[in-house]
């Protein structure tokens, strides 16, 4: 019986020209957005690999120089992106693409692509994710709003129920009927997308995982189920199909455009981001609290004079500069990392507040989860920036240690053999599990929405007015 009802609903929709048009347009947008996203991803990845390789060559061929000069000459880490970012760009346009790694500096990545984009970008960007997050739910609402309310308006609801069909069967059939024509849209798109990813990215691609793709599909399926159930509840309770439509469109509008802005405003108000000046001043204050360069050198000279039992600094048979640089780098890095970590923690708090806000809008949870799983969220960015920072500190200290080992002064120089001892920057992206754990709360909120509707839907259907 369920299948029969579903078939009737689906046939009715498929016969409706407006529906065919709508699905066609959404399908074209989805595929087009994915292709554009893919092209962008492929372009950027090609450029990144070339840049990373070129930078290694520049590092190796920098010529003969002092170790510390090389630490200032520095090297770049370029942020890799995952194939799934072709679906969801997330915050990639608003985070930098490269970290300059040099002595005495802990930096976030620079060059945000959005700085080179036009103002229209701020009106919203068309990606496969935004199509799935905004347009598909709208389509679902338009399909489902009249499920009960429409039948009631026409007086057919009483007729159907008089046949003895259990209400739950009817509801299930209607839900399936709404979902199945949509499969026409989602299935080919998914197959096409996965095939493209497997063929084009290849299993050897740096950060590609089928697990992530499966997770992404799961998140969207749960979201669509939530929208279908909500539409059925509203349709069952609304006085007319017109009221049902207005209520559902209002929900869509609020949760898509208004709540996300209000929630992020609130998150920012509860956990304010420091201004750039306040941040800079607090880093400076931390650095000023450290011993000054001359004090540090004097202290090291005294220590080394004692150690080597000599009378004057000139007689020290060790690299005072090497020791001073090594220790200064260690202390400064501690201060700078602590401030960067505090800022990262602040963003993390804002993210958690936003996740709580998803109670008001399931879209927020989906948005966060989608970019998290695709690898285009801030957490992945931070993971990369942290890896670059680890690498920076290690290589700078290898150079400083070399000054100590070689008893080097400021005019001591080393050559390519030394540069080759520093391994190239090799970044391993986090696993799908890591990404998901990061959004546990969003997952929970999404499940809460689904569970709540699973609980409410049967009640609403049971109590539905027949006329």
């Amino acid at each position, binding site marked *: 019986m369920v299948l029969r009802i579903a078939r009737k609903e689906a046939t009715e929709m498929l016969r409706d020209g407006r529906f065919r048009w709508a699905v066609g347009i959404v399908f074209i*947008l989805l595929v*087009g*957005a994915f292709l*554009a996203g893919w092209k*962008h991803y492929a*372009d*950027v990845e090609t*450029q990144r690999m070339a*840049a990373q390789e*070129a*930078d290694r060559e*520049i590092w190796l061929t920098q*010529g003969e120089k002092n170790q510390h000069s090389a630490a200032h000459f520095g090297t770049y880490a*370029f942020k890799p992106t995952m194939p799934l970012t072709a679906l969801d760009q*997330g*915050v990639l*346009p*608003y*985070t930098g*693409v*490269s970290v300059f790694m040099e002595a005495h500096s802990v930096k976030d990545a620079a*060059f945000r*692509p*959005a*700085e*080179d*984009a*036009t*103002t*229209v*970008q*701020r*009106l*919203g960007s*068309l*990606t496969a994710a935004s199509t799935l997050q905004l*347009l598909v739910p709208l389509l679902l609402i338009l399909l489902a709003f009249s499920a009960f309310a429409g039948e009631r308006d026409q007086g057919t609801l009483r007729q159907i129920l008089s046949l003895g069909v259990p209400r739950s069967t009817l509801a299930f059939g209607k839900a399936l009927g709404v979902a199945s024509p949509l499969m026409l849209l989602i299935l080919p798109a998914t197959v096409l997308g996965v095939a493209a990813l497997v063929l084009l990215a290849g299993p050897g691609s740096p950060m590609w995982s089928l697990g992530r793709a499966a997770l992404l599909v799961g998140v969207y399926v749960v979201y669509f189920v939530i929208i279908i159930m909500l539409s059925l509840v509203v349709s069952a309770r609304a006085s007319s*199909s*017109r009221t049902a439509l*207005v209520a559902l469109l209002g929900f869509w*509008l609020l949760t898509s*455009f*208004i709540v996300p*802005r*209000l929630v*992020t*405003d609130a*998150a*920012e108000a509860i956990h304010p981001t*420091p*201004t*750039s000046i306040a*941040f*800079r001043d607090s880093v400076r204050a931390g650095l000023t609290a450290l011993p000054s360069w001359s004090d540090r050198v004097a202290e090291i000279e005294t220590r080394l004079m004692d150690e080597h039992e000599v009378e004057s600094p000139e007689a020290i048979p060790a690299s005072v500069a090497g020791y001073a640089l090594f220790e200064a780098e260690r202390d400064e890095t501690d201060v700078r990392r602590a401030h960067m970590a505090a800022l990262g923690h602040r*963003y993390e708090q*804002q*993210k958690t507040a*936003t996740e709580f806000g998803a109670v008001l809008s399931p879209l927020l949870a989906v948005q966060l989860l989608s970019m998290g799983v695709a690898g285009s*969220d*801030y957490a992945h960015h931070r993971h990369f920036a942290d890896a670059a920072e680890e690498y920076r500190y290690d290589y700078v200290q290898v150079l400083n240690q070399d000054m100590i080992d070689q008893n080097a002064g400021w005019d001591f120089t080393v050559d390519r053999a030394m540069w080759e001892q520093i391994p190239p920057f090799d970044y391993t992206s986090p696993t799908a599990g890591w990404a998901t754990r990061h959004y546990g709360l969003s997952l929970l909120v999404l499940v809460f929405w689904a569970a709540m509707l699973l609980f409410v839907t049967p009640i609403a259907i049971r109590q539905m007015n027949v006329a």
Partner: protein
Amino acid sequence: MLKTILRFEAKLLRADGTALLTAGVFLALIGYAGYVGIQYADEQQAVLETHAAQYAERIAGIRQEVVEMEAEMIRKGEALDTKVELGRRHPYMVGSAQGRVITLMPGPLSPFAVGQSDLQPNALRVTMGGSQALGGAASLENPFKLLVGHFDLAFVFVFLFPLLILALTFGLTASERETGLLRMVLAQPVRLTTLAAGKVMVRAVLLFACAVLGTGAVLLMTGANGGGGRWLLWLLVVFIYGGFWMALAAFVDSRVQRPVTGGLVLAVCWLAFVVVIPALINVVASTLYPVPSRMEYVTAMRTETSVAQQQGAASLAQFFDDHPELASVEADEADYAMLRVARDERIAEALAPVEARFAAQKARQQQFIRSLGYLSPAVLAQQAFLDLADTGHARYAAFTATVEALHTDWKAYFVPKYFAGLAFRPSDYDAVPAFTFSDFSTVDVLKRMAGPLTALVLISALLGMVAYRRYTRTTLIA
């Protein structure tokens, strides 16, 4: 007759809760957006003022030190206009170490639209080597917030204002047609066009009054410092953009039998014009004219820096070849400042084509969007609003050009000083190239907006005319 209809419609709207509710929601939205905008603009103003003040203080401090050093030298009987080593008295101190910090102060209407001000640098340090961005108010903004966007007045007017219009105007006459009331009304000596016009006018007056009052209050709270003209233009854009949506509502109303159908059609129009088409234009522009990733730029910069560093002497020789007006200095006599100038010039020359490629691609995108923007009134309105708030493309482009001009002047002023190696005297501090950014006048902005706004007026007029003809030909008895 129109007067009677206006009076009746006003009464009807008052009696019906929706009008009051819509007006209340509209005012609340404007109030919240104004609050967000004012807070943001105040913070930005404070950060920029701090940058400017800290710079002025630092320069004054160094100058004071130089004055004291000179007083000491005079006491010792030493000559002041001699060659100097790198240090406080060397021109390098001001030319390269300190440079000039310049700030782009928010315009009078900046609380109305955050625009690009949270992405583009508003404070820069210009030195011999180029310009570097200093942190602005929003430079540490959470990237997710940047993605979601700000709840500012531009958002309220571009996104939500049309919805409020549609909520009030859908089913303009269709609901009376559906209930059969329209026949009774038209039995009176009144034409359907007059009736529709009256209905539109009452709603327009209500919403426009809210816009005037709401934004006027926000403007007053900001202190209005010279923003009156821009505010009036803002209202003009609101009027024209709102006019488009009203004309569209009338157009749809004149062709549908049932208000629900009309509502759906209008909702789809909103979705297309405000959400889908702008996003589509954006993705097409960035796919057709992709701006290369800055990674490529970084690599080019690195290669040139490395080459220039390794060939310091050759760069210097090349530099003297290019600048015969400067007295040549042997490589072993050249100080750090001179080598640096030669190196920077070489890097800049090598990077010029890369920079040009970026600029050209960005210009193509902008041009593309300017032409395709006509497909979506929302894009036109957004561009106009940002322009009025001084947070749009045009102002940042003009600012960048002025910064580049200052950089050129700065080099022209300091290069001879570096190579002469003479002391930078206290009086020289007053002679360094000044930064003057002449902001767009309200008339300039109006000129830029004239084309798009005229187009919008023409489209609305066309829709209105078609609706008018349709109304005149409507037969009530089917």
